[in-house]
């Protein structure tokens, strides 16, 4: 009975979601031109319409994805991921770790216990790092927002390049044999294992709802701020405004974007509306992609947390390898497209 009831609630919510989502373009026009009585063609109207359309759209997409991923994640616990990675050879292990990084739940405050748990259980250092790079960088929220706002090509591009960087960076660090740059006490610590609780479908569905409440409740403000910045650029910045500073010809904009992105730490959901506006005003795709990955994948707070288990030299190599990977991707796409 309980299963039926929770499935029914999900079904009704989904139907409502699609109905409301379908009416969003009409609604934003109604708010802009009928409620606020702005005249069409002005900067203000264009900015307001962008905001009125994008904010409910992005928030709704976000809620849908977070719900789905919340359920999916109940199948991929860190314990199971570790089990799958234990004793894997470097190359194959790096690929698997990058992929598992997408779906395994991860929060940067758990980076240290996770790192210790993996390494002491015999997961190779490079493979562990592939996981730690992929988990924040290839973000399922970013993926779906990109899909919703730009279509599948850019979403796939982001997925592919993120996985490639996580794979290569972890593999390179593995080849450099840097185990001695992990703090000694890590290998001495004992990693136990936890018995996993058995989950039923209603449990998994309620985990999905909890994820929506938790994540949407936490990031909605960032999303709205991001959209406001996006709306401003959309309405007021002249067409091709960014061509000279973020366009293809400005090769230096790629490394600069990466450097600016490291201390900037935003949630993936907050950065994407900004990305949308940047692209629209003539920034090159490679540069924007590099900027976005640097903001969400390389963060100062996470690096500081990892310093507890990694010696400065390994931290430097980590930042260097991932940063160069992101830059390479940026150059590559500016050059191809």
């Amino acid at each position, binding site marked *: 009975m309980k299963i039926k009831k929770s499935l029914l609630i999900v079904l009704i919510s989904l139907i409502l979601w699609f109905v409301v989502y379908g009416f969003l373009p009409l609604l934003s026009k109604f708010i802009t031109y009928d409620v606020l009585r702005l005249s069409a063609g002005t900067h203000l109207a264009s900015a307001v319409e962008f905001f009125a359309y994008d904010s409910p759209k992005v928030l709704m997409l976000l809620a849908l994805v977070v719900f789905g991923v919340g359920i999916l994640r109940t199948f991929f616990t860190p*314990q199971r991921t570790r089990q799958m990675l234990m004793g894997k050879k470097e190359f194959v292990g790096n690929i698997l770790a990058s992929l598992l990084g997408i779906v395994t739940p991860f929060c940067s405050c758990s980076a240290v216990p996770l790192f210790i748990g993996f390494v002491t259980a015999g997961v190779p250092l490079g493979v562990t790092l592939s996981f730690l790079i992929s988990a924040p960088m290839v973000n399922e929220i970013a993926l779906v927002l990109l899909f919703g706002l730009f279509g599948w090509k850019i979403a796939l591009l982001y997925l592919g390049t993120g996985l490639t960087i996580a794979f290569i960076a972890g593999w390179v660090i593995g080849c450099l044999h840097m185990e001695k740059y992990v703090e000694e006490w890590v290998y001495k610590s*004992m990693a136990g294992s*936890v018995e996993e609780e058995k989950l039923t479908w209603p449990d998994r569905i309620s985990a999905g709802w909890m994820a929506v409440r938790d994540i949407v409740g936490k990031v909605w403000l960032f999303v709205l701020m991001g959209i406001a910045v996006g709306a401003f650029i959309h309405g007021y910045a002249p067409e091709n405004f960014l061509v000279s500073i973020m366009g293809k010809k400005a090769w230096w904009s790629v490394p600069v974007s990466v450097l600016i992105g490291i201390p900037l730490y935003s949630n993936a959901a907050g950065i994407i509306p900004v990305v949308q506006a940047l692209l629209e005003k003539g920034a090159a795709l490679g540069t924007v992609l590099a900027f976005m990955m640097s903001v969400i994948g390389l963060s100062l707070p996470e690096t500081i947390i990892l310093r507890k288990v990694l010696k400065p030299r390994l931290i430097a190599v980590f930042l260097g390898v991932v940063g160069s990977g992101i830059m390479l991707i940026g150059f590559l796409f500016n050059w191809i497209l």
Partner: protein
Amino acid sequence: MKIEILGTGCPKCKQLIANTEAAVKELAITAEIAKVTDIDKITSYGVMMTPALVVDGTVVSTGKLLNTNEIKKIFTK
């Protein structure tokens, strides 16, 4: 009952401590609540996701910010 909360001091861990204290108070049970911030000890429990809740040496929840009602359910089991 001995309750331990494992976490390195992130906002979620602090909230879990507050919720646990509330649950203990509402149930009017005698329990000793301890914070465990030492990474070594956290990993020795096999916990890879913080915050985690440990009751009498058994890990009952990891990586979740449980609310007071959920904690009460665990305690009364």
